């Protein structure tokens, strides 16, 4: 049995259980997980789920489930615990105040006060389903905890009436540390919000819970905050690259792309008055450098006037504030806008990154005045591909291809067709996943999970939050067999999604076992270019 537990399945039997001290509130046994399609259906062949170490359990608040990503150190004294509870209550008040939470007060208040508790949303949550329907991951569980706290401590009214309407809950330190971790078990994909007949948004509620902890208590996930937005605002990028390093890397990428395609690629920097300011997720330059190379090549080939910025934050579109903190979200986005103004560009084009696109386009549309227009690279690429300026030979992409829809670009921005038009034209063996488009499933790396690796969080992600995506991919290619020498390509045009799918394929050995590969959209386009001397998709190197 791959599960290491002696306890069997554990889950809360009431909302109030979250406040009751116990060693662990929930445990998912691997045999409870839904079976994957063959050849990944035998539990004995699958990687075991590494348990948290004893020392991690001793040093950190590990009483929620089998993993940790925030990793809160244990409180040193009851006074410290009390102080945290008091701060949380103050934060809760601020969350429902016009001055402190103008950004989301109306959506949050409406979601708090109008849930009918009909549970119409729950079956649409891939995390809940993939956990074998463990109660702790039900999208309404954490929302219900916050709702009860809101009615008990914030909403005016008779306490007995409020209890009668909404139920009760005890606010204590146990609840606090569990709720903080639990807010990081939702990928914020908002599939559940789509399913709610009333319009209640459990994804938003998860995000707002993270926000109280971050903005009032300073409890944050380190990859998102310290190594994320803070590093980005000071060094220039959440990758840690400063201007010199990023320019050096881009030079290398340009040279490599020129060598491989025989087409000159040269990234322009800080060109005042260019039509397009390209801002990509800087993680691409390190993990998937060919993505930037391909985008640069296509922009040049289409004769577009473009530039990148070497200013701090200007060369990294990452904005992890979207996942946990409004102030950090606004700070990063404001820098992007300031840089666009300084360079006097006509528009910002956001690279193949879902959260960057959502953070900078619709969300940040209301954080400032007279903002430079923003556009997704998908739409620009569609125009380039069909402009007639570049010759393509779709037979160069004569391998099975499926498309992963990044939630932030599709469900939250409605950019659904441009990427499909390209793939239908350039990949003869394109097939959709089921479901797809705005009803897609998250890759499992949403809300920053893809870059979070503390403790055994990777195992949790690969076994639970990415499980549904893996099942979808397996089903999309089910008619192709599992010959590893027959490459099958998952087009995942988003940096976080690629990160999650990379880890997923590594975890299950999907490349060696089934010939599964993944990559972006621009690579597929350049791979089909008649003028490119070598294929960009080099299966040996991928």
């Amino acid at each position, binding site marked *: 049995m791959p599960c290491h537990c002696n306890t069997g399945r554990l889950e809360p039997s009431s909302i109030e259980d979250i406040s009751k001290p116990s060693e662990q509130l929930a445990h998912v046994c691997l045999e409870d997980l839904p079976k994957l399609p063959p050849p990944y259906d035998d539990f004995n062949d699958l990687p075991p789920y590494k348990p948290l170490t004893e020392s991690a359990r001793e040093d950190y608040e590990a009483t929620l489930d089998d993993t940790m990503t925030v990793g809160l150190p244990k409180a040193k004294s009851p006074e410290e615990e009390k102080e945290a509870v008091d701060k949380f209550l103050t934060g809760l008040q601020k969350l429902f105040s016009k001055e402190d939470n103008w950004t989301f007060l*109306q*959506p949050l208040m409406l979601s708090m006060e109008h849930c009918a508790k009909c549970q119409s949303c729950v079956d649409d949550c891939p995390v809940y389903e993939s956990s074998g329907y463990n109660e702790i991951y039900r999208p*309404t569980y954490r929302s219900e905890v916050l709702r009860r706290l809101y009615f008990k401590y914030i909403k005016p009214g008779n306490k007995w009436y409020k209890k009668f309407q909404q139920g009760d809950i005890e606010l204590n330190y146990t609840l606090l540390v569990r709720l903080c971790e639990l807010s990081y078990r939702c990928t914020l994909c908002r599939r559940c*919000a789509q399913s709610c007949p009333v319009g209640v948004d459990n994804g938003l509620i998860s995000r707002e819970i993270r926000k109280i902890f*971050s*903005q009032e208590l300073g409890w944050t996930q380190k990859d998102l905050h310290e190594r994320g937005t803070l590093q980005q*605002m000071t060094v220039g990028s959440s990758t840690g690259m400063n201007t010199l390093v990023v320019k050096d890397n881009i030079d290398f990428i340009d040279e490599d792309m020129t060598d491989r395609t025989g087409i000159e690629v040269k990234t322009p920097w800080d060109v005042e008055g260019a039509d397009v300011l390209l801002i990509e997720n800087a993680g691409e330059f390190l993990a998937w450098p060919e993505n930037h190379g391909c985008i640069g090549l296509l922009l040049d080939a289409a004769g577009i006037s473009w530039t990148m910025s070497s200013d701090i934050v200007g060369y990294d579109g990452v904005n992890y504030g979207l996942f946990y903190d409004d102030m950090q979200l606004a700070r990063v986005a404001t820098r992007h806008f300031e840089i666009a103004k300084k360079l006097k560009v006509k528009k910002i084009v956001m690279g193949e990154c879902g959260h960057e696109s959502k953070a900078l386009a619709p*969300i940040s549309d*209301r954080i400032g005045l007279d903002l430079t227009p923003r556009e997704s690279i998908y*739409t620009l690429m569609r125009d380039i591909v069909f402009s007639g300026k570049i010759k393509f030979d779709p037979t160069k992409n004569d391998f099975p291809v499926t498309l992963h829809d990044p939630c932030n670009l599709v469900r939250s921005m409605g950019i659904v067709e441009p990427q499909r038009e390209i793939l239908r034209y350039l990949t003869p063996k394109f097939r959709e996943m089921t479901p797809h488009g705005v009803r897609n499933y998250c890759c499992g790396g949403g809300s920053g999970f893809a870059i979070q690796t503390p403790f055994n969080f990777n195992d949790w992600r690969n076994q639970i939050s990415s499980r549904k995506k893996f099942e979808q991919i397996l089903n999309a290619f089910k008619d192709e067999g599992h010959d590893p020498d027959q490459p099958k390509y998952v087009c995942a045009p988003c940096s976080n999604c690629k990160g999650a799918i990379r880890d997923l394929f590594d975890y299950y050995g999907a490349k060696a076992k089934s010939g599964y590969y993944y990559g972006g959209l621009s690579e597929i386009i350049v791979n089909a270019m008649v003028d490119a001397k070598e294929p960009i998709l080099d299966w040996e190197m991928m």
Partner: protein
Amino acid sequence: MIITLSVYLSLLIFLVAIVARGVRIVNTPIHLRWELYPVPHEKGRSQYGGSRMEEVDWWTKPAKKDSINELVVMLKEILLLKGVWEHNRPLWFGSWTLHFSLYLLIGLMGLQVLSAILLLSGFSFYAEIPELYRLLLKYIAATGFTMGTVGAVIMLKHRMFDKKLRMYNTKSHFFNIIHLGAIYVSGIFWMIADGGFVEQQAELFKGVLSFSQFPAVPTAGIVHVAIVMLFFVYLPFTHMTHFFTKYFIYHDIRWEDKPNIPGGKIEKRIVEAVTQPVSWSAPHIKADGKKTWADLVAMTGAEKEEEV
């Protein structure tokens, strides 16, 4: 007279509480965009969930709005509970019967207001109001009460025995269903007790509109009216206000895709919001209760104490 005054009082409480709730929602500050696709007014794109952001230089092109499709989507949701049908099929029948019976009874009330106006204008209920109209009222009432009773029983069963719901139920869920069920059952009793239900109800509305004495009705009628009035008082203080707040949830959040245009209304509201002082306490926020949102956004969050 006590009954008449109680009717006015309950209607007054209902109206004041609903308006107050609406005003509270409308007076919240502008929020960041948080739409969710498909957005039904996206002309030619809503079928697959697309938006105008699919076009290059979309801000230079006029937004194409499909208000008819938006209306159709709303009607399907309101009348057929499409969301529940698609995402929670086992609950649909009970929920739909319970909701649709309410629509029927609201429709009945609307028609009875018309009846009351006719009576106040001197029309005789039996001699001058067409029988077809009277029959229509009777059938609407009978269908509404019957459907409502069935819906309440089914929903009560779900709330009691459905594992999916059980942990999330509160006492109010049972009370709400029983309360609604009592409205329907008492309505049935009123109809059975006396063949003059339609006329008596019309007289009752006439009395309310003309500030006159409560008419003579059977005990079942008085019980029915009392339960309905209690419901009017209770409803605004429950989650069931989603009957009207859903409008804001859909139009102001889920389908709200208006861009921020220089010099526009949105921009004005943003200025109001970002000039408010912020008081979040985490170290990276750097708030002191005086600095505004705009002041704080200009910082990095990594400044040392002496730099703040």
